[in-house]
């Protein structure tokens, strides 16, 4: 799980172009949106594409996004459960 979390942090940094950030600057349990990392709806689209492109996971119901993308930890758990590739 730790490996996946680190990999995911690196992928998020690349996908969201957070070039001045290091993986350890993203807190695993902190919210990704609003008060946490401060991501917004455009970033949400980037994360949806990240999941589909890198892990073959398609989010069918947009309402699930809130739970899946709550934090890095929830994202990693979801990937672990649903990963195809």
């Amino acid at each position, binding site marked *: 799980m730790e490996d996946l979390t680190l990999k995911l942090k690196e992928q998020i940094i690349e996908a969201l172009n957070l070039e*001045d950030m290091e993986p350890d600057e993203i807190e695993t349990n902190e919210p990704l949106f609003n008060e946490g990392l401060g991501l917004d709806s455009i970033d949400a689209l980037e994360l949806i594409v990240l999941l589909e492109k890198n892990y073959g996971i398609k989010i069918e119901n947009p309402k699930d996004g809130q739970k899946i993308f709550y934090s890095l930890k929830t994202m990693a758990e979801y990937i672990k459960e649903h990963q195809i590739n």
Partner: protein
Amino acid sequence: MLIYEDDYLKSVKPNYKDFMKPIEARRMSKTVKNGIICSQIAMQQAEITIPDAIIFGTGLGIVSDTEKFLEKMLIDKEQFLTPTSFIQSTHNTVAGQIAGRIKCHNYNFTYVNRGFSFESAILDAMMHLKEGKKNILVGGGDEITDHYYHIIKKTGLWKQNTLQNTDLLNHDTPGALCGEAVSFFVLSDDIKQETYAELKDLKMFYKPKNVFEIQNTITDFLKQNNLQNSDIDLIITGHSGNKTDDEIYDTVLSSEFPETPSAYYKHLCGEFQTASAFALWLGANIIKIQEFPDFIKLNDKTSKKLNNVLIYNHYFNINHSLMLLKKVES
């Protein structure tokens, strides 16, 4: 001055973290970030928070994001497309992002007129001042990518060999040294303690037939400003290293300004469509501090004062421009 040898001159990156959080900078290309920082410094120095207008000139816009978007389309076979690069690739991103950050809802315009992009922005700003606006934030800039550099190199516009920037004028070869930069200024309708210089006049002329037309245009331009060629204390030219283009500058200097100190600047920033913005920054600083360094000198002539500085630039003998700067009395 930085000395280096490369295919093209890359702008020096400031420490972005000193100016914005990484999360704020995540969708910004180098030009957008540099533009925001530059404009922030210009407004701080001019002691304004919200300008009456934001005007930017760019030849290429945010070409790095355009490439990113197109590359993603190709690699992912038009699947998995996200909007970020597309949104950021538009030419008006710099002016738009600046306005968004400072919540400025005033006039916001971007000129994309190739080698006249920055000059058009300046002209617009000058007209706004004449109409009664007080402070205009105006800038110009372009960025270079590897793709853009290599494509244009094939057309012969850029030097075919790498060279050290300080040797720019020592190579008798065609092609210019490619580069990039972003510059921002605040044009105001009054003189303050912080004012660098007065931008007295600007002229653009397109594809002159011959060097006589250029010589006459310069003389007429100065006459319109009640000056003679001999009144110019320093002329800054856009020598780019491209032999045929530089011969135009050399002819003008030797025939019209034989006793005038002259300087060049494209060994510092390279050639690009808005390079004259860098020249304006340089000229304004020279007037402010009343001296200029040896490494920009083209000749050994000296002047006791630096009251009138003329900037003459052309982009591959197509877009020619003149900017006249005058010292302000504080």
